[in-house]
């Protein structure tokens, strides 16, 4: 009897908690939920706490609203220019309409992904088959349609989902792998090998050509330098001669004297060192020894 008030308080609290558990459910921000009343979907519920009637009147189905990644299988597809291409894509999908998802796939992610795989396969043949190989791989930017193909496939799968009303949304799609059939890789190797051989000879030829170009350029440049220097030197010398020639004008006053002076100088230079002189006795000053008529100097 003494414990009544506190007992009532505690009891009330427990009762509240019990009813909350029974009548409330919470949906995480990453989830979507539907409420089914006697098995029929009667309400959608977003994130937060919500009221419901307890089982067996209402049941709550929660679905992961996050984007899931699903990878298709590596499939061989014929491109529009009859090349066999192996392609594999990854798809980001999420539940768009939980009620539809529940009825379509019984709430099973795996079944949804099985269905997606079929759609992806359709997209392979429908989209990839319309493009030549150069739209996938090309050194020419204008030909490449890599991104466009991805968008086209995504749009197609999205459209299929809408047409099927399967409650799925395609968030993104990307090509994960591109390959060639096993037998073709062998052929590619052979081609690559021969390309390498060509490249080796190209490189060799190129090296030799460039080297000889450089050498001949060097030879030409050096010959040109020398020729120019020669020309300049000759020109300088010519200038000197011209100046000298002008000075010779002075000698005209007395050519005899000029000649004499030059001769004397030449003689001096000629007989400067280790010369042997053979003298005639008629020559001055030896003629003094004979005391006879004088004669010119002779060597």
């Amino acid at each position, binding site marked *: 009897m003494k414990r009544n008030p506190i007992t009532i308080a505690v009891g009330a609290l427990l009762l509240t908690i019990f009813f909350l558990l029974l009548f409330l459910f919470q949906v995480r921000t990453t989830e979507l939920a539907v409420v089914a009343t006697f098995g029929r979907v009667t309400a959608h519920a977003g994130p937060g706490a919500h009221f419901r009637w307890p089982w067996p009147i209402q049941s709550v189905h929660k679905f992961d609203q996050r984007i899931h990644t699903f990878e298709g299988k590596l499939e061989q597809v014929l491109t529009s220019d009859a090349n066999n291409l192996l392609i594999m894509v990854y798809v980001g999908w999420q539940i768009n309409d939980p009620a539809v998802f529940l009825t379509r796939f019984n709430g099973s992610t795996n079944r949804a992904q099985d269905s997606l795989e079929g759609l992806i396969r359709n997209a392979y043949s429908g989209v990839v088959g319309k493009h030549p190989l150069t739209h996938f791989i090309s050194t020419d930017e204008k030909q490449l349609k890599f991104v466009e193909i991805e968008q086209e496939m995504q749009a197609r799968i999205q459209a299929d989902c809408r047409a099927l009303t399967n409650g799925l949304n395609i968030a993104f799609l990307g090509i994960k792998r591109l390959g060639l059939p096993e037998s073709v890789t062998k052929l590619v190797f052979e081609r690559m090998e021969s390309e390498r051989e060509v490249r080796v000879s190209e490189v060799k030829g190129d*090296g*030799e050509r460039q080297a000889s170009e450089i050498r001949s350029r060097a030879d030409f440049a050096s010959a040109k330098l020398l020729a120019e220097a020669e020309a300049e030197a000759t020109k300088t010398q010519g200038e000197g001669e011209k100046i000298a020639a002008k000075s010779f004008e002075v000698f005209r006053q007395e050519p005899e004297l000029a000649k004499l002076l030059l001769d004397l100088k030449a003689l001096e230079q000629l007989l400067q060192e280790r010369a042997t002189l053979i003298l005639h006795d008629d020559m001055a000053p030896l003629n003094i020894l004979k005391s006879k008529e004088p004669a010119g100097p002779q060597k």
Partner: protein
Amino acid sequence: MSDISLQPPPAPPPRRDAASGAPPRSPATAPAAEAVEDSGTQALSEALHSSFKIVKVIMLGLVVVFLFSGLFTVGQQERAIVLRFGVPVGGGDGKLLGPGLHWAFPPPVDEVVRIPVGQVQHVDSSIGWYATTPAAEAAGTELPPAESLHPVNDGYLLTGDENIIHAKATLRYRIAEPGLRYVLHFANASNVVQNAFNNALLYAAARYKVDEALTRDQAGFRETARLRLEQSASELDLGITEIQIDNMQLIPPRQLKDAFARVSEAEVVRSKELNEARSYENQTISKARAEAEARKNAGEAERTRLVEFVAAEVDRFTNNLPAYRSNRELFVEQRRAETLQVVYAAAQEKIVLFKGPGTTNHSLWLQINRDLPRLKEKEPDKPKDAH
């Protein structure tokens, strides 16, 4: 609370005790009860009170534990948000909690979501490398290359010029703040990043030539892949930042290792040849420059010599001109004598021929046998004529 709960009971002594907040003390209550009630009732009351207090203490303890269990710490490298009944607390995307101690209601009311924004995440590419087994990788050996590539087991990239290369790399990135989308909107965000990374490598390879991707322009290849990845990340609103591609390895197929090695060898030879040619060029040109300079200087010297020589001659001429004009005969004689003097003095050997008084002409035959200064050869007999 203890006040309210204890008001209704009629027995005053226990109330005083409880109100004073002192711990249950049997000896203190005993004397007061003794006077009013009999010992049986008193014992029952006592037992009830003490057990009631124990329960109260336990319940208080439980409440404290419950409240403390809501404490959590956010690390230096993390941010966190609180979901209350599944909805972010703080409106919109929620209030981001920084490092430190925080409190939230314990589950199921609140849920703490941690976002590792500071940590560098990394994923490896998974599509471009040939098949290996974990055992072989651990041993550092490789399986011998097959003739062809198996489409499922062997990964590779197709280049723009339809060649095959292998590639692998590691992607490093950080989750950008607030990072909520990365954590809450993707079932497996790092898997999405990995796929986008693979796709970026594929995309880069699809537009590259094999030689450029493997040798000349690896940096460009990496940059192309990085830009593509950045673009897809922003399209998906992944909320990642500081995207960086590390440890990128691009190699030719192992089947063609030798063929590719031959090309690199040829390239090495070529660059060696080119270097040689360039050094030849440098040498030849610098030599030519030096020669040209020398030739020019020689010309200059020759000019100077000529000009000086003539100037000197002109000087001599003008100096001598007055003397010559005043007496030509004497001048000539004087100059001749002077010169002869110099010449005679300079000459090493002098031979004088005397002519007998009747003869007008005579000849001299000399046998010269002298070592020439450089060529130590004997010269053949040389007749010399003297007038």
